[in-house]
């Protein structure tokens, strides 16, 4: 018993206290979402009354197109996730597995370029998309495909770099063998590499999805019409601004928006952890 205490007690104590730290804000959001007065006010840890007013508001107030915001976010983030991995994986494969002239300098350049913080290029990107809008309004400023292009393009450097790190961890023996058998790079890519890399690619896809779902500044600037907004921008407008502090609907909206993401994350945590460590654990 004493030995158990010495060996395990500190583990439980630490885990429990950090777990409480993790849960505290989340618990607050949950009780705020049931609080009809709409403030993030902690008067007691146990809610005194439970009201679904905030949830009803989200779905029944015609001024708050909550479901449309949610749909926008899911579509944009989903498309960015899939496309960026489809395009990025091919580039990463080339940088990781193929030999060609200028590879080293290309990689160095890529490394440099992907470090440029996207937020700093905001004016430049705005001007570009504004020009695109004049001849192709469907993919320019203020359109969802336009924002998608910006996300896709802006994250391309980082994505290729990240994917290259993952691709490096996949053993090359199989494609070396295939090469000896006379397979072309295309065949190696589609028939050997892609099946091997699927778990890693899905993880990157998920991370890219979450990253896009979270993006705020560009979405706020690019998509202005009420029904075009993403969930992050829409929810922020509840509490941002001088005239608003509607924590109740914000909390309710955040919970609904987070549940699917948290659920995916928890159910795929094994793969995610493998993916996260893959980049590092090659020693």
């Amino acid at each position, binding site marked *: 018993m004493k030995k158990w205490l010495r060996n395990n007690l500190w583990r439980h104590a630490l885990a429990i206290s950090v777990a409480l730290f993790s849960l505290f804000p989340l618990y607050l959001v949950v009780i705020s979402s049931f609080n009809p*007065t709409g*403030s993030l*006010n902690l008067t007691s840890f146990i809610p005194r009354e439970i009201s679904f007013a905030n949830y009803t508001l989200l779905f029944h107030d015609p*001024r708050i197109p909550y479901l449309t915001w949610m749909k926008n976010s899911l579509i944009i983030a989903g498309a960015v996730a899939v496309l960026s991995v489809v395009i990025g994986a091919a580039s990463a494969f080339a940088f990781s597995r193929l030999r060609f002239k200028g590879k080293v300098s290309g990689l160095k350049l890529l490394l440099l370029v992907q470090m440029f913080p996207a937020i700093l290029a905001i*004016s430049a990107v*705005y*001007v570009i998309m*504004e*020009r695109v*809008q*004049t*001849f*192709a309004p469907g993919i320019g*400023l*203020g359109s969802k495909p336009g924002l998608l292009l910006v996300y896709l393009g802006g994250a391309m450097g980082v994505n290729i770099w990240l994917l290259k790190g993952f691709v490096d961890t996949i053993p090359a023996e199989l494609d070396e063998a295939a090469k000896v058998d006379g397979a072309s790079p295309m065949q190696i890519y589609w028939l050997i590499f892609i099946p091997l890399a699927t778990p890693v690619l899905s993880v990157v896809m998920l991370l890219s999805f979450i990253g896009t779902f979270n993006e705020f500044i560009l979405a*706020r*600037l690019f998509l*202005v*019409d*009420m029904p075009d*907004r993403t969930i992050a*921008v*829409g929810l*922020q*407008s509840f509490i*941002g*601004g*001088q*005239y608003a*502090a509607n924590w109740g609907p914000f909390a309710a909206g955040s919970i609904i928006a987070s549940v699917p993401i948290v659920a995916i994350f928890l159910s795929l945590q094994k793969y995610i952890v493998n993916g996260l460590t893959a980049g590092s654990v090659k020693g």
Partner: protein
Amino acid sequence: MKKRLSVVSFAAAAAVALAGFAAVPAHAAGGEIVIWADGQRGPNLQKLMSQKNDWVAGYSFKIVSYSSFDALKAAFDNATEKSGPDIILAANDWVPTAAKAGKLAPVTLTPKVKEQFTAGQLFDLSYKGKLYGLPVDVNNVGMIYNAKLVKSAPKSFGDMVDYYLANKASLKAGLCVAGGGMSWGALGVSTALGAYPYKIKDDGSVDSADPMNATTVAANVSKYLLTSDGKSNGFFPATDTGCKDNFIAGKVPFAIIGNWEWKDYLAKGFAMNLSPVPGTASGTYAPSFGSVSGALLTTYAAKHGVEAGAKTALFNIFGSRTGARMYQKIEGRPAASKDGASFSPTAGQKGFAKVAGITSLPQIGAILNGDKTSYWDALPSFWTAVLVDGKAPATEAAKLAAIYKANLAKGISDL
């Protein structure tokens, strides 16, 4: 090699063939006037457009609503010829900046339109002698008191402090800012204590003399807002968070509220017991801002080939009796135009109009925006310094006075 060539030509031919199907895209639909507005006014404007479709015969309107004033500002800052609006509903203090950026086009009013507005309102939307738009609605704040706690309106600033100190146990604060924030909304408190960013002479021009006496202000701050050991006495909180909730809960007897939010207070059963913030001498009142939001004409309108249409739209919608009344009915803020304002005002609108009538300071962006430090940043910092950080009021007031003085000098040269 031959095969390759055929392939290339096939692809090229296909591309050209497909491209040929689509005609070169038309320019923006003929005669469409684009109006940008914030998330509150935009939808209301949309409603206005659907109620009457011939504001300018032959033109259609497109309303774009931004999620917040900040987002609207950011987009307008970034806008260029391609994307910019023809008309923007903006705060009056954007006028100098936007005019400097070459984004605004001047308008001249006919006597009929001009008489709808006061000279001060038009001045609010002018920069370097040019008027850039039409006033739409009036923004001001008033001080509301909780009649369940205090029987009658306070006569002086000291009355309020005395009430608070006597009932401190049951109160969270004495006077707080619920609407307009700690610079715009809190001007009344600041001027009550003597801290004016600028003063207006009787003839309506800006007084170039030093607007604020740091010693007087420091003495007033110490007397009314601080305890003997230099800490805040709790009467006036340095932030606006929770003011509304606490006022409604009866924990704060006096609150400064905005004219755009009075409906919330009426709904909670409060009468519009409004007045300006009382001054330190009994029976005097301290001015707060009375500003207008304007519908501004942009230079993009000319580039989009709709300038005459957009100007006409400004006159027909915001300068006409019909337009002002219809918009007023939807928006519910006090209208800027005389016709709009005289149209069946509600208790709240009457109350705020009365407050503005007793005393108000026109909001002059050229002075307030400042040179290095703006009024908007300086005043909240002052509150934080003396009420939160417990710094000496004399030093902080001197800094504030120096900023106001510099801003006034720069503003006057810029007017």
